[in-house]
Every structure is written in structure tokens, then in C-alpha cells.
């Protein structure tokens, strides 16, 4: 099960709700249930949201688009903040990060 590390749970939940609309086009599953998000931190002083996320593979052909869509979804949810997306591959994504809802979706 994936858990997103954060310093502000309330805003993190708000972020996850927004990122629920970002879909991996190949798999058809949103990036939250797919377990692509590692950390979402808020710097209130400088009004910056730091999003640390991954992709199913470093060479995901849809990588640029997924990252861009995640940025736009976050910007929409937090218009007064600068969104800083950090794409990381350590630790690498694994199937274990897919949520129960995600697994149910893929089992359909």
C-alpha cells in the first residue's frame, strides 16, 4: 500500500483529490491509485508546493505528459502557490504501490 509523506495532511488530501483526475493513459488508472506519488510538502512562507513523484518506468513514453498534467492539476488546486515537481526513480515504482482501489480497477 502506498503512503504519501507530507507536512500538511489537510492540504495533502486536497492535492490527492486534485491528482485523482490525472490518468496514466496506457493503464487507464489515476496516478494516486497507481502509487506514483511519494511526497507532497508545503512551504507556506515561500508559497511553494514540493511534489515528489515517480513513473512506472524511467522511460515511460507518457512520462512528460503525466508530469505536466500533475503540475496543472496542482496549480488548479493551489493557484497561489508555485508547484515544484521532482521526478525521482529511487526507490523505483513497483506493483506493490498500487492501492486496493487501483487493484480492483485493474481486476475488472
Amino acid at each position: 500500500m502506498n503512503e504519501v509523506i507530507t507536512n500538511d495532511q489537510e492540504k495533502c488530501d486536497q492535492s490527492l483529490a486534485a491528482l485523482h483526475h490525472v490518468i496514466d493513459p496506457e493503464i487507464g488508472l489515476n496516478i494516486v491509485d497507481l502509487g506514483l506519488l511519494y511526497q507532497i510538502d508545503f512551504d507556506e512562507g515561500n508559497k511553494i508546493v514540493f511534489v515528489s513523484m515517480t513513473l512506472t518506468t524511467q522511460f515511460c513514453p507518457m512520462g512528460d505528459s503525466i508530469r505536466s498534467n500533475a503540475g496543472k492539476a496542482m496549480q488548479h488546486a493551489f493557484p497561489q502557490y508555485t508547484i515544484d515537481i521532482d521526478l525521482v526513480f529511487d526507490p523505483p515504482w513497483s506493483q506493490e504501490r498500487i492501492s486496493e482501489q487501483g487493484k480492483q480497477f485493474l481486476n475488472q
Partner: protein
Amino acid sequence: MVVTTNNNLVQNTTYKVVIPFYVYAALSFFAATVLLFLSDNAFTQHYFHPRTLAITHTMALGWGTMIILGASHQLVPVLIEAKLFSNFLAYLSFVLAGLGIPLLVYSFFTFQLNWIAQIGAILINAAIICYLTNLAVSIWQSKKENVHAVFVFTASVWLLVTALIGLLLLCNFSQSILPKDSLHYLSLHAHIGIVGWFLLLVIGVGSRLIPMFLISKYDNRKELWLIYFLLNGALISFIILFFSGVDDVLFMLPMACTLVVLILFAKYCYKAYQQRIRKQVDEQVKISLLSVAMMLLPIVLLLMMIVLLVFSFANARLALAYGFSIFFGWLTAIILGMTFKTLPFIVWNKVYHNRAGKGKTPNPKDLFSESVFNKMGIAYLAGFCLFLTGVLLSNAITLQVASVLLLITAVLYNFNVLKMLFHKPLIK
């Protein structure tokens, strides 16, 4: 404002490199089925027939090799986790092969194996050298050991060996440079190409892509290395036996090794299928999985041929059925499936890359018609089974009907490829 502090995403190979190979392959498949339709009577005769040679080379080079070269320029960076070394070398290999293949096919078709054929073969060899150089430098720069990349690289070396032997055989037609006539070496040329290039490459890439598309956690490096050594061992022992002039029955040894490899690979795919997270398997992956099972058919036909040879009875029909089941069977099935798992992503990125977040974008699989794909699959399976029956029975009417079905397959395939390539963005 959205910023990116850490962009670890390695850039994909540009679509401008990859798409020309796909287009060339699609047109070659159509050309091969037209030739098949016009030459169905050639399949009631000996396999060393000008039209059979022309069709085989259109399928092996124009269809199989060109699409693999195109796809591997996209896939190799994924496998080795590094950028492709040179787009220029990729373009150059396309241009050289693109010019060489028609020259060679035309020469076979007219059976004038003169300087035109030799130039064609030289151009194809030059294209392979460009591809191999690009691959070698890309892998060397990546410095990451990867079993799949080793499969691809070794397969490409075998492709060059196949093409060099092909060139030698062509030269041997006009000047006697080899101890025996070119027909004698045909099985050497064909099997290095089929096993060394196509089979090794399909296993190397398929063992990475099939679990990926199924979202399966199955991964067994040990088994892949075993397959790698068994298959290369089979090929090297075949070459040694070929030049030793030993009894035909000994050829059972490399054949048995290849059979073990096919069973191991089928088991690998089955395990990946069993451990998949995505339960729903789409039609494109289904046809690719079917092609794995179709690999066993040529082996059965080959076994029958060797048994008959041991009793000094050569069967030309079985040899034709064997070649047909490889190029129009196993190889075509996997390409039909995998084209629609790779090309939609390449086109999607080309069209929607800069439009992400501007509105609802279609999914890559929406870029082609699923219904046309299904019809293509039915026409293909019916055409393949019928043509194979026609070859084995030497029945001209069956061959004619089957060739129409395969022509329809090629038309539907080209329709969907063109539909993707001319896709207009649904959002501005």
C-alpha cells in the same frame, strides 16, 4: 507556476526517426500480400522460385526487419536506460535499407541476380552496420548490464552475419566464389536470420514488453540467460554441423535446443500472464501471446522435414509451409499485435505532448479503430490457416482464397496505421 527541479526523465527517441520505419513496414506488408496474391501458384512448386524468394525477402526485410529496426530505436533506450546515440545513424540506416530492399526484391522477382541485386545487398549491409554502430555506442554509453539489451545486440550481430552471407550468395551466382552453388548455403543463410536475428530479438524484447503490458511482476533473469546461451549454442552448433557435412540426423541437436528455448519462453510468458495485475488482456496483447504459441508450428514442420531427410526423402511442400509459418505466421502475428501497442504511444506523444492539461485527451488506444483491428485479426487467422493448408495440399484454389484474405489483412492493417498517422488533435 509549475517548475521541475529534477528531471530524471530520459528523452524518448523522436518520432521522426521511428515512424518512417513503421510506414515502410506497413507498405511492405501490403506489397508482399499483393505479390502473394499474384504468385499463389509459386507455392505449389519448389521453394527456390523467383517469386517465393521475392515474397520471402519482402517479408523478412521490408516487413519484419524494418519494423523491428524502427521499434528498437524506440525500445533500446528503454532497455538500456540511456539515450539513443545518434538520430543521424538511425535516419541513415532507414535510407540505406529503404533503397536496398526494393532493388533486392526486384532482382529476385525477375531472377536477374546481377549488379542491381548486389548493390541492393550492399546497401542493406551498410544499413545494418549503421544500426549496429548506433546500438553498440548507445549500450556502451549506458554502462548498465541488461539481459534484454544483450539479446538485442547479439541478434543484430547475427543479422549482419545473415546479410553478409546473403551478399556472398548473390555474388556466388555470377562468379563462383564459394565451393558449392548458392542453393546449398540457403538453409544456413535462412536459419541464421530466423533464429539468430528474429527469434533472439523477439525473445529479448518480448520478455520485457509482455510482462510490462500485462503489469506483471514476473521476472526471471536466470531463465533468460539460460535461453540466451541455449539459443546461441544451438545456432553455433548448427553452423559447425553444416560445414562438417555430417549425417542429417545430427541436426536434431540444435533443433532440440531451439525447441527447449521455445518451451522455456512460452513458460516465461505464461508465468507473466499468471502473475499479471491487469486481469483484462486487450486484443493486441492476445494476438502477441498467440504468436508465442505459433512459434511451435515451424518446429513441428522442421522436425518432420529432418525425419524425412534421414530417410532420404526431401519434401518441398513442407519446406514451403515451414517458411510460410515463420514469416506469415509467428512473425506477422507478433508484429500485428505489437504495432498497436507501440505506434499509438509514439503518435500520441507527437500530437498531445504539448497539449497535456489543456483538455481531455483521448487514450492512445483510441487513435486506431478497435473494430478494424478485430476484423484484421479474423481475416489474418483465417488467411494464414487456409494458406498453410493450401501449401500442404498443393491446392491452387485454397491458396487463391487465402491470399485474398491475407491481402485484406494488409489493407486493414494499413488503414489503421494511416488512421493513427493522420490523427488530428481533438483539443487545440
